């Protein structure tokens, strides 16, 4: 691939004794939509602020377009940010807000007006160009903030949880607006969020962060189907995580002994296991089958139903194995009738060996 647009090399950011970002290495390419996702305090917003120059790295290098950015002041870089609070200037109207970046760069008044109008119209704000910010709705302000950041035609746009203040139906609509915009402009979007649905819906690549570390980088599908470690498997959710020791090593499969029973998992190609090594694996909740009778699938575990969560077409069943391990199963609502779920009755959860996925240790445990 071509030279990356953004390079993080051994970047560390400390605030006093607290380490917000622990040795980050990451490349972001031109035209990519990258989402940073993680729980609050995981370092994702700090990463974005490092990129915008609002924080200076304690160690390491950040390069933008090949140029070392560590000491470059925020106003000397082209890294516009869409803020979580939007941070629109309340004393300026929509057009003047959009013009701000151009004004600071010394554009003439008529050029500024023309560009600002063009961007506001492009984002469907043509009617509201001269409106005061206080007279705009949440979704409209969002568009003004986007226009303000994009008017200088940057190579990269940073977005810090921009949709977190919007109503659910507006979030879906703005997701559409953002993806379309990113595709049309072909510029890099770096998007920070704690919302899995936002990240998975829009991003080409997702960076999962936790405790200041990058836990996994991959496409939404990779992260969903093959979480790298326990942290990712738990954060992405709806994963059954089982731990135990290796009991038997074969070419393709490992047999794992856990307190809930013995299970076979695919033998990962990139790691070698020996008998009695500790091992964890995950099985996605939507890949398991629930039955009343013991099934003859590769893996089967007896469990009790604890509760169910109905969210429409899909129902999540929360179960418990005999040793107390929590298990989850996602079942289509229409198939639920076959099982007729009742509390405190024994069911069997089963899955084929290939649905299981061996996890690495969390980086912080190494």
């Amino acid at each position: 691939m071509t030279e990356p647009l953004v390079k993080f090399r051994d970047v560390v950011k400390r605030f006093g004794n607290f380490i917000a970002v622990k040795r980050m290495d990451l490349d972001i390419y031109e035209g990519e939509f990258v989402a940073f996702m993680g729980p609050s305090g995981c370092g994702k917003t700090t990463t974005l602020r490092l990129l915008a120059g609002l924080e200076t790295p304690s160690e390491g290098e950040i390069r933008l377009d090949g140029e070392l950015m560590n000491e470059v002041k925020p106003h000397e870089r082209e890294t516009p940010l869409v803020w979580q609070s939007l941070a629109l200037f309340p004393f300026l109207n929509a057009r003047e807000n959009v013009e701000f970046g151009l004004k600071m760069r010394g554009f003439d008044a008529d050029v500024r007006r023309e560009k600002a109008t063009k961007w506001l119209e492009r984002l469907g704000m043509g009617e509201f160009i001269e409106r005061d910010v206080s007279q705009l709705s949440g979704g409209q302000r969002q568009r003004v903030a986007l226009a303000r950041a994009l008017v200088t035609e940057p190579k990269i746009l940073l977005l810090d949880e921009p949709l977190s203040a919007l109503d659910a139906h507006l979030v879906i609509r703005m997701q559409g607006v953002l993806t379309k915009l990113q595709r049309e402009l072909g510029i890099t979007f770096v998007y920070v969020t704690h919302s899995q649905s936002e990240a998975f819906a829009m991003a080409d690549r997702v960076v999962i962060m936790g405790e200041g570390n990058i836990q996994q980088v991959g496409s939404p599908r990779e992260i969903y189907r093959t979480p790298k470690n326990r942290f990712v498997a738990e954060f992405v959710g709806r994963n059954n995580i089982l731990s135990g020791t290796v009991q038997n090593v074969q070419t393709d499969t490992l047999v794992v002994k856990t307190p809930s029973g013995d299970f076979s998992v695919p033998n990962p190609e990139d790691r070698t296991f020996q008998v009695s090594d500790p091992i964890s694996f995950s099985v996605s909740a939507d890949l398991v089958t629930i039955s009343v009778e013991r099934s003859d699938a590769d893996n089967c575990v007896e469990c009790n139903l604890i509760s169910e969560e109905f969210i429409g077409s899909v129902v999540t069943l929360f179960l418990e194995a005999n040793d107390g391990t929590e298990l989850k199963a996602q079942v289509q609502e229409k198939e639920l009738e076959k099982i007729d779920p009742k509390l405190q009755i024994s069911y069997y959860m089963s899955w084929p060996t290939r649905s299981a996925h061996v996890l690495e240790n969390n980086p912080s445990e190494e």
Partner: protein
Amino acid sequence: MIKDAAISFTLKAYLVALFIFVFAPIVTSVVFSFNSDRFPSIPLGDFTFHWYELVLNDPDMLTAALNSLFVAVVSAVIATAIGFCTAYSDYRYNFRFKGPYLALALLPPTIPLIIMALAMLAWLSKIGLSGSVLSIIIAHSVLCMPFAMAIIRLRLSQMDSSLEAAAWNLGASEWGAMREVVIPFTRPAIISSLCLTAAVSFDEFAVAWFVSGLNKTVPVVILEIVQGNIDPRVNAIGTFVFLTSITLVVIAQIIFMKNQKNGKAS
């Protein structure tokens, strides 16, 4: 229901009493300023502009008024400028001894005026400034600064903390962000601070009396007039002073209330 009515009546009566208490002396003074009698007494004499003519034709009075005006304007500008810097440093930075720093900045109004005035006189005469207009300006700037700071600080506290960073992010240098974002955002507070501190300086007597020397301000001249005898000119002067101050305060209040409303909307 009866109880509600009783409470409502009591509150209204209280409000009326309060206004009478505050405004009766001022209204009396205004009324007697148009009264032809030498001594304030009821029934009133004829309606006259005589006292106003006397005041307007008195060169000492004119000098004092110009002095007061000059001192008020310059002190208001200095106090507001220092107050803005103090409020901004509090908003923007965290540093050791910030508590004592702020306490020190807010200290002047808590010192009894007479002590303040004496201290000012002692200090200013030591550095050879006592008796000049400059000395009144220095003293009044010190006195007014805390008010300016309090007003501007309140406005800054309503500013989204990412607003300034957003300006940098869009290509504004620190000075650019100050000019294009911080000052426009605090402008209503700056204007009301200018009005309010000008009013405080214009009315201030004790400190001005101690440090003014020959460059008397209006309140100092008033005292000199009433010390000698009862002179209805004082009523006329008082009416002027009252009008000036109340105008400034009302302007400050209107701008400030408008700015509070905008602050909430944004």
